[in-house]
């Protein structure tokens, strides 16, 4: 999928990225965030000065391994408890506005 970014400049479109994150932005908000995010990107861009060739990425922060669970069922939440927090429940299910595909 084509991104609405310019690849050579690290200029991001705050409104477009907010769309990816499913957040509506007002015009004023978008303008303010755009300025702040440009500052932040300029700041974090300093990492580009660093030579990281040959460095492994830290993809795991824990020393734990194989923290797996045996296949034995446990009781979870009672349905009324699970549904109690639902903004809207119907037919013992979580109800949401219609999905337009």
């Amino acid at each position, binding site marked *: 999928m084509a991104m609405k970014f310019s690849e050579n400049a690290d200029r991001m479109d705050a409104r477009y990225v907010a769309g990816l994150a499913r957040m509506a932005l007002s015009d004023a908000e978008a303008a303010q965030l755009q300025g702040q995010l440009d500052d932040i990107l300029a700041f974090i861009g300093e990492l580009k000065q660093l030579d990281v060739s040959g460095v492994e990425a830290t*993809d795991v*922060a*824990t020393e734990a391994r194989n923290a*797996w669970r045996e*296949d034995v*069922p446990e009781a979870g939440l009672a*349905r009324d408890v699970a549904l109690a927090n639902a903004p809207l429940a119907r037919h013992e299910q979580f109800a949401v506005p219609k999905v337009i595909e």
Partner: protein
Amino acid sequence: MSDYVPSIGLEVHVQLKTRTKMFCACPAHEEGTPNVAVCPVCLGLPGALPTMNREAIRKTVKVGLMIGSEISLRSTFDRKNYFYPDMPKNFQISQQAAPLCIGGSVEIEVGGQKKTIRVNHIHQEEDAAKITHLENSSEIDYNRASTPLMELVTEPDMSSPDEAIAFLTALKEMLVYAGISDCNLELGHVRCDVNSSVRPAGTDKLGVKCEIKNMNTFKGIHRALEYELERQMETLRAGGKLTQETRRWDDVAGVTLPMRSKEYAHDYRYFPEPDLPPVTLDAATVEAWRAELPELPAAKRARFIRDYGLPEYDAGVLTADPAIAGYFEATAQKSQNFKAVSNWVMGELLRALGEKGETIADAKIAPEALAALIALVDAKTINMPAAKEVFQILFDRGGEPAAIVKEKGLAQVSDTGAIDGFAEQAIAANEKVAAEFRGGKEAALMFLVGQVMKLSRGKANPQLAADALRRKLQG
């Protein structure tokens, strides 16, 4: 020959047969009453964390072992980000950077031609919740959320809808065999994304790929592919251009349609799942899991043909279900007549099970009893109609065939004196037929044998009856 060559690749999602979900201890496969198998983890509550189901990982690795994948000794989970209400966290825990199984292949056969379909990888992931779309709203049941899934991704090695179905059939058979999944299509245990493209015959570069999402019947996949391949070829023949896109199959209209999706729908922003440490396996564990693998259908078929001298057809029918194959082997071990065992299992036994809607596990007829029944037939102690009667009794309530034969008085009459008497009676009552036989009409004898059987109330040895009739008519 066609001017275009199709390439088909499949992404097959299979629900694994485990007791609990992939990332929490809620019961898996809870159908029916909604939202009864849910907890903070599979509802995506604030602060909840996933935990790995070892059995799901074991099952996925076993699939890899069955198809000859390389098993990753270190594999990791990743988050695949997208918003949809069936995904409680709005990301799916999946594997992208280091899946559990790499490579492998599955043999298929279509129209007598054998072909190897390469598998790119198999990864572990979690299923989504069930969402029901109503007119003005949608309702979500999270029972299915986080059910263990394996996703098997093939290379685009299939070139016809038949090959795609043959692949799925072979895979399904394997998975059911090894107890990996029930592969119940109605329950959505197997779901496919179908990728297809066409390229001009004689060229190598794959054409533009279209993906048909979320197919869950083999018949649907076949029809969708037939339509889609034709659509692509027609477009190109008419001088049109194809665009890479995601489509859906409309089963009622019998067409594929482009899905309306937002431009950014495919930016999944994968990154390593920080809440799950890597899965590390050692060679000993992998070998122990390999040792648990059952004999695979293809190997079993070959062995049935070789060791029991069965026709390919019989071997195919008998090995389609591992339980039936096991029953056959248990019976064959007690019998000398393997083909007869095969006939009985394929014929009477499958028929009787089908009528009652039972599985072999429910059958009351022990393999020893079936073997004994076959021995009685072979020794001509009983004839075929009687044997079928005995079989039904054994099937309904079990028991020992010799005792039933005795109890019901079903033993064949092989007493030549008695048979001679029946033969004379039959000839006397059917002079006209007897005359026809004497006039050279060989088939008339069979009618008279039938009359002898009738007079003996089915117990006469038909061979002896025919001998007696022939002697009297020709003598």
